[in-house]
């Protein structure tokens, strides 16, 4: 489907097509302005597609002709700001979507949900009386409680501090698998997407750059954009030699390279390269330009000799490496790189 906003000739989304299996969690990953939130809001029913359609469990929700109003979709949503209703207690907030149930069932379901998201102890407090994490848990509980066919998350942890955010992400992952919920999770953060989702759809300027398993996107990106978005990367030119693709670093068992700067290229992650000191080691020669201490590893920038046809490479090595700027090294593909493809 596509979405044009009035007064803007560039579509917010063009020719986007996604499918989500029951019980699956898909992350919509992308920069701000990539159309991920628009896509989510269309699924929720707050926006209408210009062309194309949205169906949930076999029933048509949206099409340019007709649209099911948000309240009839059976879709739950967690917003960027917690957006708890400040005049209701935590319990009342969690029960907010349950009012059509009989009193006893509503009570039971709300209690159950409070337990599920670990906020039973603050049920009678008002949103301003609980911590940010508890508020966000309540917001998730509120969306979960009616057991919607589909859950939507719009960057829900943006305003939490990093430590809390990771706790919440892991917790959310557990809750989602416990409840076997189907969910769309919008985020701009790769690590959030990795943590919470089974598969990822990476959006770029209103198009889907690539969709698939998180590991596939990481290891076999379909474009330079995808390769870069999912982490530090070396884009290495390759050429065909018989049945295989070959690079300056040697043979690469890659299925399909992508176009980058006019040539075929593949992505090689910094940890997939190895450096050795001394002129007689195997590999391509270069000079260390910079070393950055990163905690678990050191990030080394190597200026490759002109003859190699490569420019700068980034290599991650163990923190114990004694590399110094200016020293001569040789770069090779680590064994893992070859087997990973």
């Amino acid at each position, binding site marked *: 489907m596509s979405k044009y906003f009035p007064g803007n000739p560039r579509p917010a989304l063009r020719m986007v097509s996604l499918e989500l299996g029951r019980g699956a969690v898909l992350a919509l990953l992308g920069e701000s302005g990539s159309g991920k939130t628009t896509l989510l809001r269309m699924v929720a029913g707050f926006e209408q597609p210009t062309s194309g359609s949205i169906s949930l469990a076999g029933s048509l929700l949206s099409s340019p002709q007709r649209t099911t109003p948000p*309240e009839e979709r059976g879709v739950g*949503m967690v917003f960027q700001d917690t957006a708890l209703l*400040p005049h209701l207690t935590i319990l009342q907030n969690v029960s907010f979507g349950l009012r059509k149930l009989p009193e006893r069932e509503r009570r039971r379901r709300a209690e159950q949900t409070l337990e599920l998201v670990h906020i039973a102890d603050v049920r009678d407090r*008002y949103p301003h009386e609980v911590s940010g994490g508890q508020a966000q848990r309540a917001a998730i509980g509120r969306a979960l409680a009616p057991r919607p066919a589909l859950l939507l998350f719009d960057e829900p942890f943006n305003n939490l501090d990093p430590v809390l955010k990771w706790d919440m992400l892991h917790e959310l992952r557990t809750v989602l698998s416990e409840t076997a919920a189907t969910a769309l999770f919008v985020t701009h953060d790769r690590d959030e997407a990795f943590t919470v989702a089974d598969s990822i759809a990476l959006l770029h300027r209103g198009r889907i750059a690539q969709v698939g398993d998180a590991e596939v996107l990481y290891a076999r990106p379909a474009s330079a954009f995808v390769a870069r978005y999912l982490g530090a990367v070396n884009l290495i030119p390759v050429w065909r030699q018989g049945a295989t693709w070959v690079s300056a670093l040697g043979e690469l068992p890659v299925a399909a390279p992508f176009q980058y700067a006019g040539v075929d290229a593949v992505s090689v992650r910094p940890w997939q390269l190895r450096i050795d000191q001394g002129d007689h080691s195997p590999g391509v020669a270069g000079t260390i330009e910079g070393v950055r201490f990163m905690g678990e590893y050191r990030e080394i920038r190597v200026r490759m000799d002109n003859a190699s046809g490569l420019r700068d490479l980034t290599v991650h090595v163990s923190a114990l490496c004694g590399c110094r700027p200016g020293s001569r090294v040789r770069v090779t593909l680590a064994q893992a790189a070859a087997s990973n493809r």
Partner: protein
Amino acid sequence: MTDFAGRGHLVHLADSGERVLAWQQRLRAMWLRTPWSKGWRLRRVSATAVQTISRLWLVAPGILAVLIGVPLVVVGAHLGALSSPEVRHLAQTVLLRYVANTVGLVTVVGALTALVGVSTAWLTTAFEFPGRRALSWLLVLPLALPTYIAAISYAGMFEYTGPAQLLFRRWLAMAPGSYPTLDVQTFAGLSFVLTVTLYPYAYLTSRAVFARQSAAVMEIARCHGYGVLEAFRHAVLPLARPGIVAGVGLVAMETLGEYGASHFFGVDTLTIGIFRSWFALGSVEAAVSLAAVLLLVVAMIMALERWQRNRARYHAPSVLHRPIPRVRLNGRNALLTAGWCAIPVVLGFVLPVAQLCWWAVDGAGNGRAGNLNLMRYLVSTVGLAGTASLAIVILATLVAYAARVRRGPLVSATARLATSGYAIPAAVLAVGIATAYSWVDHRIIGASRLLFGVSPGLIITGTSLALLAGYVVRFFGVGYHAIDSGFCGVTNRFDEVARSSGMRPRHALLHVALPGLRPALIGAVVLLMVDMLKELPLTMILRPFNLETLATRVFRMAGNEMMQEAAVPALLIVAIGMIPVFVLQRVASAQMKARATT
């Protein structure tokens, strides 16, 4: 940026967040602030400034505290003396009727203004329809029309010689008595007139909270199974409640203090009772006792508001704010919506003003509107209002600055007391002031007789001094909040610039802050003068015998059934009252443009 914060005009309530903030500050003053209101105006100024200025400037809030405290104590003291024979007599005769009428009127008018104000505010916020932009500010216009003038108009419209009955007699050629007539001079009629003139308070406060509300509120409810109307009822409306309650609270205060319209329509409220005891019965004791009862009603309304607020908070701690998107309406829905929003404007402004114009033209035709001595009343009115406004602006600047320099509980308490003047019904204030100052006057006379053997006369109550004091007390809050929000705009930078460039705070205030404050100061003067020009009950009680303002002139002429003589000064008051409404519109649209370009 100019911030106009007028009691009668709420000019600062255009949609921006700053305006909402200014509004909150005013409400806090009115509703005896809540604990979380602390720390909204605190700015650091260097220690030397604190020492040199604060002591001196504490005098200003002190003066005000005395000015407002004395009449309050005088009236409040009578709460304890409610067992005197005079009060017992009141209780046996009229008190019940007064209280019943007052409470009934506040309830009915409160409910109706809430209905009109909230519905129009929501429709102009959430929907797009032809005429929406114009209507969204036309809806404020009835604020320019004081209740007593609207009452005069409506009374005239439906009387025997009024256009309604003329329509039947002249154009439909029906005989008197054969056509239906409408007696508006009843409780229902008064409720109607007060509703159509006072609903803008509810409209403005509701519009402000709706503008502040994020679109997310509606969306949350929608994706939890609530339809549009249910979502409005269960999420949007509860969140807007403090704003609505605040607006209705203002309506309640205005209704409690209302004198002119109740008088014309013959509804005996507590305020009417105070006037009757004071003037007709000449019983100071009864008037003050009734004032004490009225004060009790005010206190009860405030307590009710605080109680309903309870522990819940109503402003969502939202980081992101997406304004509510306007849904475009077409065809019949657009017509109905525009019609609904236009009705209050027609009833609250167009019709009564048309009636006034008709009288004025009629009067000009038969010469009765000729010798009006308009200039004389205008000069005396403007003189009085100007003097009081100037006094308020100077005092308010000092108090606002003192509140920033010295944050102690004493200063904030006095500032709070000083700004609570407009929460007190004018009649109560007037009775308190008159009683207190006549006591002072008589002590002065006694002392003077003893020392010099001559009587200087009533120095305060016999001159305009008492009235000026009354104006200062009643309208101080209006000026204070206009200037205080002005300070909010300049102090931050003013402090930092002053300190980092080595300027002495005194100089910085003079050369940096005051120029920045100028729009706020001018705005405050305009608002204050307009408010005072319209003021009736306070003026009626506190004015010296020979003094007549435009408002009292209108009231007396209308009371003598001299409508054509009353019409021209009334129109003048309306025209002046429209100034802030237009300023509001200009400020709002300028801000809209500024926002569109950023």
